[in-house]
């Protein structure tokens, strides 16, 4: 089983994670269509809204709190319609109240350590990060 590495929503949209790989990401729940088992997470970054569609078949039923922060762990798949990617969730937890800035700092702290260590695994994330500087 591949580990679910932390990525930010904008990185997921920029294709930082290969199709089929596991990913862990977070965002605000903006919409949920139970009949299609699809939820949309959104996050604001560098004056832009980034969104990603989450397939929720494996995690239903869940209590959707629109506007709350959620963390999702799942596999990257091609989005229906062929445009972009979506996350097929295996875990979808509400983390409303999370300190987003601190969470970002935590993720970056871990990444900068792996960069120091010269890990090639960190390179995909850092390349995406450089495209959208924090």
């Amino acid at each position, binding site marked *: *089983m*591949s*580990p*679910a*590495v*932390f990525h930010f929503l904008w990185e997921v949209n920029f294709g930082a994670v290969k199709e089929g790989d*596991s990913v*862990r990401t977070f965002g605000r729940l903006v919409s949920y269509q139970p009949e299609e088992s699809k939820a949309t997470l959104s996050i604001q970054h560098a004056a832009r809204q980034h969104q990603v569609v989450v397939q929720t078949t494996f*995690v239903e039923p869940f209590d959707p709190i629109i506007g709350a922060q959620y*963390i999702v*762990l799942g596999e990257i798949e091609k989005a229906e319609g062929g445009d972009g990617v979506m996350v097929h969730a*295996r*875990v*979808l*937890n*509400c*983390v*409303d*109240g*999370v*300190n987003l800035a*601190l*969470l970002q*700092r*935590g*993720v970056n*702290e*871990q990444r*900068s*350590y792996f960069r120091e*260590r010269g890990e090639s695994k960190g390179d995909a994330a850092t390349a995406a990060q450089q495209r959208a500087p924090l």
Partner: protein
Amino acid sequence: MQPEATEPEEDSVWEEPPSMLWGLDPMFNAFNRLYVKDILHMRESCQVSGIYFYNSHPIFKVDVLGTVVYKREREDFFCYGVDDGTGVINSLCWKDEQWREQGDPATRKCRYSHYSCVSTLFVFTVGCVLSSVWARAFGSSACEDFNPASELKKLRQAQHSSSHLEIGELLRVRGPVKTSRQQREIMASTYYKVSDPVMAVQISWMMEVPQLYRQCYDKPFHLDSSAQNIQGGSASYLLGRATRILKDFLKEKEVTRFRPYDVQDLLQPLVSRQPQKTASEQEPEAGPSSGPPTSFKQLRELLQKSLQILQDEGLVFRKVKCQDEVYHVTERDKDLLMAVRDILREDCRREKYAEKGCHILHILSSVRQRYSRNVSKAALVLVLKALECNSDIISTSDSHYTIL
């Protein structure tokens, strides 16, 4: 930064510190907060199985915080797959028997332990004491609110919810690492569900672990010179390895006789690695006065000590003690075997030894008279064992032998 020895080429360069010195590394006794990726790639020790090396540190126990991504439940344990973002590892979590419900199949099988009874009684007694104190403080009506049985039930439920996790929940697990069926897993000594609604615990873990790596885990394990020179420590370890190397060589090559310089080179890698080639190539037999290099002297000493150990164990002996140091490998010395067999054949014909056979000390003195004065008792024991395995002789008692 010293790289982890994950590549086969790197393995050959780095040598494990002797196991006797591992206790000097604080990481050996701590629950190390390594990333799962590093736990999965750690190199297992070739001295002691169950101990692993990360960046020259001996690792025994780890501490992991991660999301449960798969779960297998059996009657006695859970097997949780824990994902910390760098890797996924199996975690074997034994169920705690004493917290099982009365109606559980396990307790129906009367597996109620003595400890469980004692602990329940203890909780009940404490409950009664507390309720009487409570009554005195707040009036008698308060006594009815405290019910030890229901409190015990709540405690049991809390324990149950702490150890039963579903996929997506956060698990903290601490324990030794084991390799089972070529898979690394953690044998949990402690595990519990972490309630982390706003990710505070995970965020602080993400901030702390890189610091731990920079300050402790990635700094190589340095043995200061006093530890290196401990006589009890690295010296006996070296000697043990040297003896093993010689034994393996004599066995593999089916050596019957050898001289010290025939096996000297085998021990070269154990001695300090400073290149002293010129001196040793030119004059291998140089005496102490000509000042041989330190590593050559160490080599000779190590060789002498190892050969002495082999002699004490009876594996080798010197038939004739003279300038020419020739060692005979006991079990392959056909003349010695024949001599012992002949002694037994002749002496067992005599009435004195016919019934009970010959005592080992009698055989020893005969061998020393006829064959060589330098055969030790240990060597003779090995010869007698070899002959008995061959069905040439048989032991009639603990220390008596007769011919077949």
